[in-house]
């Protein structure tokens, strides 16, 4: 059914259609509307046989999820930013124990400085946590990926993060095609756990493991993610058969045929990039874009195949590894190992800074001319940066950086809600 609804509500309804049994969450912007939506559906009885638990922290949220998943319940939670970091110990534990929890990450920047707006620093910080990470481009895809995520997680016995851009997707009202309960039931069978806390067949879960077996347990986590590389496209195909649309998969190319310049990005940014590319194509520039949907596992072969004919690749990412540069770009370089392609890393949209078509157009024009440095911070205000650097040179007690800069930009306005 077509609906004009907020991204968060679309996800809430999709999760509800997956017949979740335990949902736990702690409020953090911009994830709140998702769990509010589901919470109301559970409380009203619209979602039956489901427990909704208001926990006291994200650490508890993931811990409750661990307990309920281990007891055989289909389990969902959602978080963002500081919340994801606060639950990190349990995030690693969930994947280490092989519990198929599905979690939405409404992608948001990490402080300090505190910032509630979108970038990808939060989920990407959990790159190595053992969770599968899928990035949605649109609200429709966010909705669809949740339905696919439960299937993927439960088939592999591995947790899945569905990452959707905070505010840009979570708070945007868009048209989505909401599937019916029958469609979802036909696609997603009831959860059959591989391990469960059951008095009829008592097992111990979470035993102490020494050097004699630890590496094997960890390797099997990797092996499962390698299997996910096959399973993710298969599930996307099944999804298309049942729901009639393309959603998910490992990567998605746009106008890549004969492209000499390939842009690589993740999430909602792909929409703006596609518009920019359309304009440049119209002007005769051979340019295309590759969207990475599955960040973990990382589809090396598919990325390599998509980039093979290109002369240059520009990776635009909404986070970066302080002290080196690109994170997605490093993975892209691994995929291009042995192929000679120029590569550029662009860090953009940090802390919610708008990534405009105008900036992208200028950026890609430069890239096409190979006039880009290896690492670019898109739309960085050098005046402000240099002013602060000068201040630090002049004065030992130069004061807190963020507050100095806020004064410099002529605004001491701090976001009211965080």
């Amino acid at each position: 059914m077509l609906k004009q609804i907020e991204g968060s509500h679309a996800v809430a309804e999709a999760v509800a259609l997956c017949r979740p049994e335990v949902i736990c969450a702690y409020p953090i912007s911009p994830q709140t509307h998702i769990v509010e939506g589901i919470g109301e559906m559970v409380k009203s009885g619209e979602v039956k046989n489901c427990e909704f638990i208001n926990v006291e922290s994200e650490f508890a949220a993931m811990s409750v999820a661990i307990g309920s998943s281990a007891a055989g319940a289909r389990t969902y939670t959602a978080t963002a930013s500081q919340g994801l970091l606060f639950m990190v110990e349990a995030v690693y534990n969930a994947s280490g124990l092989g519990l198929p929890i599905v979690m939405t990450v409404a992608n948001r920047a990490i402080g300090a400085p505190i910032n509630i707006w979108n970038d990808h620093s939060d989920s990407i910080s959990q790159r190595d946590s053992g969770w599968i990470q899928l990035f949605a481009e649109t609200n429709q895809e966010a909705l669809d990926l949740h339905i696919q995520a439960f299937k993927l997680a439960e088939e592999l016995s591995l947790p899945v993060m569905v990452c959707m851009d905070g505010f840009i997707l979570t708070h945007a009202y868009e048209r989505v095609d909401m599937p019916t309960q029958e469609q979802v039931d036909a696609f997603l069978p009831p959860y059959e756990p591989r391990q469960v806390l059951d008095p009829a067949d008592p097992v111990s879960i979470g035993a102490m493991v020494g050097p004699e077996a630890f590496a094997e347990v960890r390797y099997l986590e990797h092996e499962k993610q390698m299997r996910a590389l096959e399973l993710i496209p298969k599930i996307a195909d099944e999804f298309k058969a049942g729901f009639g649309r393309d959603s998910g998969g490992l990567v998605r190319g746009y106008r890549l045929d004969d492209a000499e310049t390939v842009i690589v990005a993740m999430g909602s940014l792909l929409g703006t990039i596609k518009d920019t590319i359309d304009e440049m194509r119209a002007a005769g520039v051979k340019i295309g874009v590759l969207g990475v949907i599955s960040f973990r596992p990382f589809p090396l072969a598919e990325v390599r195949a998509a980039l093979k004919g290109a002369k240059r690749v520009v990776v635009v990412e909404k986070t970066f590894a302080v002290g080196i540069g690109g994170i997605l770009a490093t993975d892209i370089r691994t995929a291009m190992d042995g192929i000679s392609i120029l590569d550029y890393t662009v860090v953009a949209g940090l802390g919610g800074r708008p990534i405009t078509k105008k900036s992208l157009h200028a950026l890609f024009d430069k890239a096409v001319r190979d006039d880009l440095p290896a690492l670019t911070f898109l739309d960085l205000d050098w005046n402000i940066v240099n002013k602060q650097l000068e201040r630090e040179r002049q004065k030992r007690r130069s004061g807190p950086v963020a507050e100095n800069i806020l004064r410099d930009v002529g605004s001491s306005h701090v976001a009211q809600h965080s």
Partner: protein
Amino acid sequence: MSFQPVKFYQTGTFTVGNRLLAPDQRSVQANMERTNSLNSGHRACQGCGEALGARYAIDAAMHATNNQLVAVNATGCLEVFSTPYPETSWQVPWIHSLFGNAAAVATGVSAALKVKRQKAEMGDVRVVAQGGDGGTTDIGFGCLSGMFERNDDVLYICYDNGGYMNTGIQRSSATPPAARTATTMPVGPEPGNPFGQGKFVPAIAMAHEIPYVATATVADLRDLEHKVRKAMTFRGARYIHILVPCPLGWGTASHDTLKMSRLAKETGLFPVFEAERGELTHSTKIRRLLPVEEYLRPQKRFAHLFGKSPAIDTIARLQAIADKNIRKYDLLDKEAN
């Protein structure tokens, strides 16, 4: 009174032989069908109070639930000594996740089991969470308080040995004042753990007004079992705090574990009581009141109090704590003492 200890009058002890009792009054440990939930072969130290407490408590909980029980464990000695891979001593469905999240994991298990029960996929299965004092009073305290205030259907049992024994005897918020630990050495002007710090979590549990709070020691099997069984008659959050001597951390003889437990209670340093919805309902009386020295002297962690010049002031401050407990929890049986 909810529970009448049985006196074995010939010897004046409470440790009555089961043969003299009606079958329903016999202890779970003396029951032929006890589950040995924490089975033999684990790797606890000789005289470990926690191993004893866990076995008593979980067997009693199994008995009370007709073996329909799931146990959740915090990281710590109990988790480590019971499950070196690929062996496990647990005869119950058991999960260990992290150090600080046992209460929250138990909430999750409890929620899942409730849904399974609603869907008629499972019968009535109950949940026990357990951890040491570090995992309960320090790192797990946030999750514990959250579980309490939501009144989740979980019995949480804390095995309190007064420190981080698994990592080499460091101070926790349950370490008693003056005690020597690896991080509160008996040096400087105030040797050992400082006075005026620490917390008594049973009182904090009571402040949450949860259905049931109790304390117990491993010295009184019947009392401990009674409290576990009683806890299982309530729905909602329940808390039992069991004092479990640690021969390694306390510097006591392995064969003195029960004696030390008894002395903690008989001096008033560890009050044994029950509370329902925030109100004290029963105190286990001290049978023969003893000065705190009796409890402190056998423990090497308090050895610095009893050197050539005994730390009389410090011992007096510890005695004052015991005296306050006696007043506060009404521990003195006026007739007996």
